[in-house]
């Protein structure tokens, strides 16, 4: 636990160790191919965005990494081991927050440490620390029903981080939030990621969100879902949405995504 608070190890930025390896992963529902043979290597401590319109299988891919569904063919490996099911080492943040409404903010965050059987005082101390990290100090005793959408998602992020997973999977986490809250949380997400150094896989359909956040953007194709193109970004952070490099990339990806949306027909 304490190591996590120390400075991120210098080696981490240079290391190109493959953390998540997706090999020919495919998902079919009956005759329908939801996701066609994906091959992808994600490096340790990298920030990857899966980008595409709905129906491109980006959430399916995320769910396979999380262990919620199994690929019908191929494999998903994390640290070289095939994913068998959900695990505390892969934290998930959901678009719909998925907070336990009967638990206060602090008890939601303490859920992982509680499952690990830590003493009560330690659970609370960890939960308090992570709530403070997401800017919710002073809101510990509130129930999710009394929190705004942005605050709920902050609690959900704190809950995932409090378990100290090495992988953080985020399924359109800011999709339900208003534009202002969304941009604030994107900035905070980067700050937290730079501090915590997790391997992040972030699903979104917002191009600017992907460019703002990611080291690598995986643009997905529709009908069937597949990887269309991978972009490795070298824009320095913090990124400015009006910078020429940002705008150029945004235009390029927009064209790619538009072609995929058109394949879906009338929407």
């Amino acid at each position, binding site marked *: 636990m304490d190591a996590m608070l120390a400075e991120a190890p210098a080696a981490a930025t240079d290391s190109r160790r493959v953390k998540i390896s997706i090999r020919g992963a495919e998902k079919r529902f009956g005759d329908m191919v939801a996701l066609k043979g994906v091959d992808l290597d994600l490096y340790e401590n990298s920030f990857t965005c899966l980008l595409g319109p709905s129906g491109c299988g980006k959430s399916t891919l995320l769910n396979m990494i999380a262990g919620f569904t199994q690929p019908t063919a191929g494999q998903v490996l994390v640290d070289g081991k095939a994913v068998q099911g*959900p695990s*505390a080492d*892969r934290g998930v943040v959901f678009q719909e927050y998925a907070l*336990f409404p009967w638990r206060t903010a602090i008890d939601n965050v303490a859920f992982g440490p509680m*499952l690990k059987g830590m003493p009560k005082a330690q659970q609370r101390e960890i939960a308090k620390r992570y709530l403070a990290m997401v800017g919710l100090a002073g809101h510990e005793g509130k*129930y999710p029903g*009394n929190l705004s959408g942005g605050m709920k998602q902050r609690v959900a992020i704190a809950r995932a981080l409090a378990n100290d997973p090495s992988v953080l999977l985020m399924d359109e986490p800011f999709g339900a939030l208003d534009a202002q809250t969304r941009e604030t949380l994107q900035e905070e997400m980067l700050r937290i990621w730079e501090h915590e150094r997790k391997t992040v896989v972030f699903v979104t359909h917002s191009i600017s969100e992907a460019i703002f956040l990611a080291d690598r953007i995986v643009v997905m194709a529709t009908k069937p879902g597949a990887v269309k193109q991978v972009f490795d970004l070298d824009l320095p952070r913090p990124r400015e949405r009006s910078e020429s490099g940002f705008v150029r990339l945004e235009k390029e990806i927009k064209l790619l995504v538009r072609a995929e949306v058109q394949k879906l027909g009338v929407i």
Partner: protein
Amino acid sequence: MSAEWRKRLSTGGMRCVAILLFLAIWFIVSIGNAHWWKFFNPVLLPTPTEVVKAGIEAWQSGELQDNILASMARVIQGFAIAAIAGVAVGLAVGTWRPLERLVEPMIELLRPIPPLAFLPMMVLWFGIGEMSKIAFIAYAAFFPVFTTTVEGIKYVDPVLLRAASSLGASRADLFRHVVLPAATPSIITGLRLGFGLSFFVIVAAEFIAADSGLGYMINDARTFFMVSQMLLGAVVIGLIGFGVNILLRSLEGWLLRWRVATRG
């Protein structure tokens, strides 16, 4: 000023006004009939004051307390059995699919039959002692508790289960920390319905076979044509039901304080 007054009246005052109005209508109909209109035999509808008088008499003789205690003891025992069985079977059926397929048709077959239809049989099986009444209440109150428990478990938000399992929850953890708390609101609703039903059926059971209890008191008064005492029985049942419901509601409010927050 007048708005505030009106608001105050509408909250607490209005209730008192409604109750007083009800009593006044009762009083007027009773007195008016006895002295002027003479539509029916005045013995058939005593005034509220006569009912209170009957209550005081029954209390002084100790008869009223004995009957209340007898009825409450049956309700509590029968309901306790129903609550334990209903929640236990409901949890088992809700979590284990094969059991659901086995048990559900049986329950669906029995549920539409009014429990009262089985009362004479219960008397045959368990005799006219306490056992038949307790068994009857337990049977009647079982269904709402069981049904709401199963519903509560079935409709647990699957994303909460995913969230918990991604935090490292085992199957047992999921049951204890997600399924059970998520189902608690509907279980509590079922318990409240079940308790109401217990109260409802005990009176009927005591009409048929009992030598104590509020239902017995009403039925016994009927044979002696003591209408005040019959009404007294009904009023006491109403007051107890009202009081117990307030108690259960506040217990529910405390257990489900997070849900109040959600509504606000």
